[in-house]
């Protein structure tokens, strides 16, 4: 039988039952490989459920450092009898299945083109432990031990991870080491040692860090000076607020008094969450909320208020599969349009599009500067794939000389000196007016904030010219935003290319791999990663300089393409959509297939040339 042989380039998938404690064991497995200097990218694939339903953890081991999902599985660690048949189907021919052989399997439930590795895990656990919970938890560690032998993972790295994790908890440390060795020794003695998939020590991890996007974004909010957070629990954004609380407890407690330099409210719903954030922003604090698609729908009325009344607020949208409740635990990029144009009437909003946790950190901190500078809601558009998966990425950086940009705020001294204050007066021609914080001056600078139409001095006015004047200024402000949001990044092909590709966010990892594969096949593509909205002119120029441009994104309706046509005024005839929206992260294989097909159709020599 064929046997897959691969060093530092394979996919291991763990099929588990959720609530069984497998998550931390599986992460241990991934981290051990990282510690051997070999890049990994793990992904949680989980149901909307707490206990008892199937859950998967997929680890791609890639010496080349590819972070996207590859597709296909080389080794299935099949720990869930419920999903056995489906799990088995996913294995590539010549691949491996590792399973609990305590209960014998009938041959009909196996495939004859894969390698079966059985280990009586339950039997071993029952013989070693008496406590049912221990039997369950250590079973996970035992299989990690066995895998370390099968894949040639250095057990010292795992034991080192244990000693870091259980520092000062000697008993826990010892029991974990014992379980690990139990599994490893069994595999070495009874399972014939290493299989065709091997981890070989390398140096490809470098200085990079291993962090999930939500933790990184939350840390960005701490660094960016956010003091008020209001949120309502929703997958996949809850861990962002929880991480913010955790980071604040570490960095934001006043050492002298033990009191908090932050305030977090778990609100009654998304409406209250955004309302609290807007109230705090109005009063001069840096405030945010984090949510997912359904929350954006609920917040829409308030988002319009913040746009029209010009109040800074930061909104993290960790996108999931829509519409409606949709696929709450699956990933998509399907809120782009609903955020860009959130709320009734004519509105447009600033969007930041991070590709990974590092950019989640950077864009998060930057979002607070932008919101203050532009006095408007700023969206950080993450997604489940970035937000809830630990990713190998560049270290987080901060420049201590960086000062917060609090935007145009008129001070007591300026008011006292008699400077003219019109809350909606465009003094500088950039569409951005001055604001005052409540309580600044006894007799000057107070104004009434409202969602209704007003004149330049914030006085209620329903007259047409006042309204149009204000709406035009808001457009000028949006033009100013173009100069402030992150610019797109160009990834030029190595050879002159007729094709272009535009992509953003979590598609980035798979895209970069796809570009390399395509180049190897002779399809050269210049790629542009969009990082913010409103779109800069570079994007339209990029489209104009290619006969065909692929727009690669993770939604059904080609939302970025729509936004490009609408806002960057690009020629829609040049745009070809590559759309992936089944809830799983897009893969390089998918992108390569789609682009190769399109390219083949467009590389046919024109009929005229053939005839002449």
């Amino acid at each position, binding site marked *: 039988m064929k046997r897959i042989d691969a060093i530092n380039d394979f996919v291991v998938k763990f099929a588990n039952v959720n609530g069984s404690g497998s998550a931390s064991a599986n992460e241990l497995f991934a981290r051990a490989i990282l510690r051997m200097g070999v890049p990994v990218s793990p992904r949680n694939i989980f149901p909307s459920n707490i206990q008892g339903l199937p859950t998967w953890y997929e680890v791609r081991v890639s010496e080349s450092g590819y972070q996207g999902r590859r597709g296909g599985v080389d080794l299935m660690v099949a720990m869930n009898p419920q999903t056995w048949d489906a799990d088995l189907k996913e294995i590539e021919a010549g691949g491996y299945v590792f399973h609990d052989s305590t209960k014998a399997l009938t041959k009909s439930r196996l495939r004859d083109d894969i390698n079966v590795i059985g280990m009586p895990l339950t039997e071993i656990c029952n013989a070693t432990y008496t406590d049912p919970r221990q039997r369950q938890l250590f079973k996970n560690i035992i299989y990690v031990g066995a895998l370390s032998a099968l894949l040639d993972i250095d057990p010292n790295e795992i034991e080192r991870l244990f000693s870091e994790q259980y520092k000062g908890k000697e008993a826990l440390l010892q029991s974990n080491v014992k379980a690990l060795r139990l599994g490893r020794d069994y595999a070495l003695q009874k399972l014939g040692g290493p299989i065709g998939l091997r981890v070989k020590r390398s140096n490809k*991890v470098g*200085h*990079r*860090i*291993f*962090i999930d996007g939500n933790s990184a974004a939350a840390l960005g909010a*701490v*660094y960016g*000076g956010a*003091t008020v957070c*209001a949120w309502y629990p929703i997958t996949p954004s809850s861990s962002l607020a929880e991480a913010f609380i955790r980071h604040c407890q570490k*960095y934001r407690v006043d050492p002298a*008094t033990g*009191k*908090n*330099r*932050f*305030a977090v*409210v778990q609100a*009654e*719903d998304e*409406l*209250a*969450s*955004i*309302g*609290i*954030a*807007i*109230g*705090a*922003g*109005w*009063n*001069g*604090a840096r*405030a945010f909320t984090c949510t997912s698609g359904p929350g954006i729908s609920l917040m829409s009325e*308030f988002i319009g*208020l913040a746009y029209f009344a010009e109040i800074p607020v930061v909104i993290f949208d960790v996108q999931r599969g829509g519409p409606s409740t949709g696929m709450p635990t699956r990933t998509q990029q399907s809120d782009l349009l609903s955020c860009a144009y959130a709320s009734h009437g004519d509105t447009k909003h600033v969007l930041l599009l991070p590709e990974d946790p590092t950019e989640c950190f950077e864009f998060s901190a930057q979002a607070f500067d932008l919101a203050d500078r532009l006095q408007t809601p700023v969206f950080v558009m993450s997604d489940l794939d970035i937000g809830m998966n630990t990713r190998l990425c560049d270290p*987080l950086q*901060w*420049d*201590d000389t*960086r000062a*917060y940009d609090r935007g145009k705020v008129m001070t007591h001294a300026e008011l006292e000196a008699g400077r003219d204050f019109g809350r909606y007066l465009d003094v500088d021609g950039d569409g951005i007016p001055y604001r*005052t*914080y*409540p*309580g*600044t*001056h006894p*007799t000057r600078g*107070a*104004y*009434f*904030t*409202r969602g*209704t139409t007003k004149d330049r001095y914030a006085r*209620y*006015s329903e007259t047409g010219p006042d309204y149009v004047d204000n709406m035009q200024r808001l457009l000028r402000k949006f033009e100013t935003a173009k100069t402030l949001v992150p610019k797109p990044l160009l990834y030029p092909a190595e050879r002159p290319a007729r094709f272009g590709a535009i992509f953003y966010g979590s598609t980035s990892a798979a895209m970069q791999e796809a570009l390399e594969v395509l180049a190897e096949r002779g399809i050269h593509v210049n790629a542009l990663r969009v990082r913010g909205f409103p779109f800069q002119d570079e994007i339209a120029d990029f489209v104009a300089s290619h006969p065909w441009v692929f727009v690669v994104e993770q939604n059904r309706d080609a939302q970025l393409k729509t936004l490009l046509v609408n806002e960057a005024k690009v020629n829609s005839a040049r745009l070809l959509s590559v759309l992936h929206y089944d809830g799983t992260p897009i893969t390089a294989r998918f992108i390569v297939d789609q682009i190769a097909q399109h390219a083949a159709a467009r590389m046919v020599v024109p009929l005229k040339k053939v005839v002449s």
Partner: protein
Amino acid sequence: MTYIAKPKLHHPELARNKVGHTRRDYEGTVSTLCAGCGHDSISAAIVQACWELDIEPHRVAKLSGIGCSSKTPTYFLGNSHGFNSVHGRMPSVLTGANLANRDLLYIGVSGDGDSASIGLGQFAHCMRRGVNMVYIVENNGVYGLTKGQFSATADRGSKSKRGVINNDEPVDLSGLALQLGATFVARSFSGDKRQLVPLIKAAVEHQGAAFIDVVSPCVAFNNHTGSTKSYDYVREHNDAVNRLDFITGRDEITADYEPGEVVEITQHDGVALRLRKLAPDYDPTNRIKAMNYLQERAAAGEIVTGLLYVRPDARDLHAYLNTIDTTLTRLGERELCPGAVALEKVNAALR
């Protein structure tokens, strides 16, 4: 055009308070509500209370939702920042504002549509959290701006101006506030300034969620026979449990009372409330009894007014969240940003 500036001229000998302001300094623009609207009397009571308490107008933030009542912040405290937010959502906006800057005085003005219908949830959770604010509902039982539909506080059996009978049970906001943990609950009548002004003053002084339900007749749509929120009906059925005459420490005691007629409640910040009892057995520090009394009198068709409940040891959201005494808006990079060295440690722990 609904923005009308008031002439600044006033009598040169108009009385000034301790911070040097006349009562006129606490006014806003000319009201655009209907002549005789109860809401204007409430605005006047807020002006009076703030003037008497020597509050600096610019240290007040006044927030509202949407509706006739929510328009009124334009008509008082013209030197305060105001925020006319979204229908039913004043409580959340005010909560955020309060978290950002705990040094200002927060007055939230809302109506029965705003707080009992669309914003019932935000009203409830704001009370639960103990946001330090004065929450005034100008309660007239109808939607005025949309011309006379019943609101959720309209009594069952009351008749609209068009002759429609209301079949729905009313939402009793005072009763809900009591149940939800508001630490100061009062009900009053816009036509009784002597009762209302001291209640607003006490609510301002209260360090916690202070709620005042003010029955405020709508002269345009709900002041007819058959309405239970008309001037006549409220006057006939008003059952005042007490009259708050003084806030000791600020005003001198000038009247004499018979023993047993007066009850004094000292709050934990030292501010004492002196109440003249009207209902002999009414104890405004007993929440359960207050709830019972309200229900009993409501069943008898009466509207209980006065200071219904006060919790002397009230705390607020900032206390629960353990926020720093300095307002959060005053903190800068030094206090907020952990810096590059700390970040390098974070990176190191993630390898």
